[in-house]
């Protein structure tokens, strides 16, 4: 047992840190540090810089831009990216549809999509959830009916993140309504968002921003060559996709960066005649979160070290623990930031109607409440924490 990183791994960390802090524009990183959303252009710019250096999709197969790194190297890469407030390569591209196409797609699909997906020339969104199919995804009702060399797609998707920016959507649609089990008869289909019959309606979230959308498909004609893999095998590909993101979901680096910022801001805010950071009660609240975060970091490293011994095509149920605890701790940091900001969490910046007025209160106050409200999503998306508990109960505890 040796829980220290090797000299090579430490050198690798230095290289990653150097890249992220010198090559990614400071204004983008500062914006992320403040907790603000990055624009489409900024997301694209950051990912293209990473891709130009071979760092956008290091976990992909080598022939499509992957790096053949060890799990520990991948962990260090993600950790440095998160700690240095670099916007991660778009998850829908890098972690979801890309690996599915690389694994199950046709050669033509790989050539058409993978380089453009890595470089964010194509912005993907995810068409999985439906109004009646959230945690119970397999009850989805969107249909794709074969008509000559096209599928005709009808239905509604929801919670479609950043669909307003997207060029393409990867969808689960029912191709065999008569299948014996609801998980059967689903196919994985790629659809150009410009196709006639697609309507996108934004949904405003509690922070006031627009991150998610509803997407309607009304007789949308999709060429059959946009089917990934085999017809009616889409559920298997979706499971592969969801099992792909295993260790990064703890987002320990993100929480660390948040805690650093909280400490910096707590030195500026005063409670009575001393800085908030000098308040023993606040320090203890903060320390309690730091302890859990350190434990989670070690848990994450245990899962990473275990990856060497596992079949990488199978999801690791231990990643459910990372999701549960990681989301709780990210949410805890948003509360600590509100503690620091104090009464100036009150003003609401009206995105919809715009305003040229200067912000009320200290400039760092503006994102505290929106982030708190927005980050309630973290324990809901990607398999809610209750679903994660179901997974652990079944796969680890044997219930």
């Amino acid at each position, binding site marked *: *047992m*040796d*829980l*220290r*990183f*090797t000299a090579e*791994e430490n050198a690798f960390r230095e290289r990653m840190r150097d890249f992220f802090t010198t090559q990614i524009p400071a204004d983008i990183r500062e914006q992320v540090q403040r907790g603000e959303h990055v624009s489409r252009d900024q997301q694209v710019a950051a990912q293209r810089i990473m891709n130009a250096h071979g760092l956008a999709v290091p976990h992909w197969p080598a022939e499509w831009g992957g790096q053949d790194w060890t799990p*520990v190297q991948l962990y260090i890469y993600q950790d440095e990216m998160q700690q240095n407030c670099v916007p991660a390569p778009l998850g829908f591209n890098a972690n979801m549809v890309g690996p599915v196409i690389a694994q199950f797609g046709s050669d033509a699909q790989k050539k058409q999509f993978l380089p453009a997906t890595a470089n964010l020339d194509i912005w993907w969104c995810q068409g999985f959830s439906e109004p009646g199919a959230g945690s119970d995804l397999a009850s989805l009702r969107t249909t794709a009916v074969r008509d000559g060399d096209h599928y005709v797609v009808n239905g509604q998707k929801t919670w479609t993140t950043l669909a307003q920016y997207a060029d393409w959507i990867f969808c689960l649609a029912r191709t065999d309504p008569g299948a014996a089990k609801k998980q059967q008869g689903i196919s994985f289909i790629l659809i150009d968002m410009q196709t006639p019959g697609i309507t996108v309606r934004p949904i405003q979230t509690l922070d006031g921003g627009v991150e998610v959308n509803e997407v309607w498909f009304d007789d949308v004609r999709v060429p059959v060559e946009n089917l990934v893999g085999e017809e009616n095998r889409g559920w298997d590909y979706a499971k592969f996709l969801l099992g792909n993101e295993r260790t990064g979901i703890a987002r320990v680096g993100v929480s*660390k960066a948040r*805690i*650093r910022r909280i*400490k*910096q801001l707590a*030195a500026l805010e005063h409670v009575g005649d001393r800085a908030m*950071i000098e308040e*023993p009660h606040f*320090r*203890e609240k*903060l*320390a*309690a979160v*730091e*302890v*859990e*975060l*350190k*434990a*989670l*970091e*070690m*848990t994450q*490293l*245990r899962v*990473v*070290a*275990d990856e060497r011994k596992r079949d990488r095509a199978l999801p690791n149920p*231990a990643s459910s*623990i990372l999701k*549960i*605890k990681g989301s709780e701790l990210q949410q805890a940091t948003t509360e600590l930031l509100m503690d620091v900001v104090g009464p100036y969490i009150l003003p609401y910046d009206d995105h919809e109607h715009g305003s040229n007025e200067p912000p009320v209160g200290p400039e760092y106050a503006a994102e505290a409440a929106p982030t708190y409200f927005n980050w309630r999503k973290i324990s809901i998306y990607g398999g809610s924490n*209750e679903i994660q*508990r*179901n997974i*652990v*109960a079944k796969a*680890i*505890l*044997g*219930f």
Partner: protein
Amino acid sequence: MDFDLSDEQRLLKDSVDRMLADRYGFEARKGYRAAPEGWSRDIWAQFADLGLLGLPFTEEQGGFGGGLVDAATVMEAFGRALVVEPYFATVVACGALLRHAASAAQMEALVPGIAAGQRVLAYAQVERQSRHSLTAIMTRAERDGDGWRITGEKSLVLHGDSAETLLVTARSAGQHRERHGIGLFLVSADAPGVSRRGYPTQDGLRAAEITLANVPAEALGDPAEALPILEQANDEMLAALCAEAVGVMTAMHAMTVDYLKTRKQFGRAIGENQALQHRAVDMYVSLEQARSMALYAAMMASDPNPLERQRAMHAAKVQIGRSGRHIGQEAIQLHGGIGVTMEYAVGHHFKRMTMIERGFGDTDSHLAALARLGGLIAA
């Protein structure tokens, strides 16, 4: 980055697990506790045969050269089985103190007896007013020719009633709570002037109140500057306790999951209820967090940077305490009535866990100390 045990460590683990499976069931443990000393000399001899009593000492000293991971491996197994023998007192606590403070001659005089199971040691540190402080020492050490004489009252001395040898902290100089002036002294338990009152503890172990009246003693290391060594040894004790706690928690969690699967009410196993499954999962998350921090503690307890080491140990003890309380309370709740009786094992694990959480600095004191040091993440 390697979390696996070495081949030797796996052998150690297997032999300890096997011995405990054979000899340390719940009923057998009751028998050991009923012995006059509150533990079994026969089991102690088996520990000696397995090489466990000489584990932390080097081969030249008569031991086996084990490190903190080896100690953690043994302690985790002991935690699962709720071992009542004075292993922590003799081998972990006094072993660490001796390794850091004793001269080669002193080691030569003591270690062979310890390793052979013929000498039990106890660490007499706590005093009535000291709570969790290592510097609140009022026991005095006075020079007497080449040696020393100790006078004072030591309290809550784990296995102090059966120990042949005591390692006693005392002040040879300096004021109460001053870092300077503290020494560590070797005292024979049957020396004139030693009086001991032994008693059972909440968790099935033994402890003693010890009065020392002008007792002859030998200094271990510098008689006035022992504090850094006491702190280093204390951190190694904490790492071992964290590992023991993980064993205790593992057992409580396993018993609870098993109970949920077998206990039937309303015509089905109670574990078919999602509400209870999710609580068992939350216990599991707490357990894995604790396990991670116990590993971190074993790694950091020997870190050469004292400040980083202290931060890590505070953090580990906080996590262990919180996880242990959560798992313990839930284990009792989910067992229902049987959980609050002495007749079933899980309650005994809960009691041990509670004493680990409250001992060697409770969760609040470690959290406060970590907060004073500025936490783990630099601004």
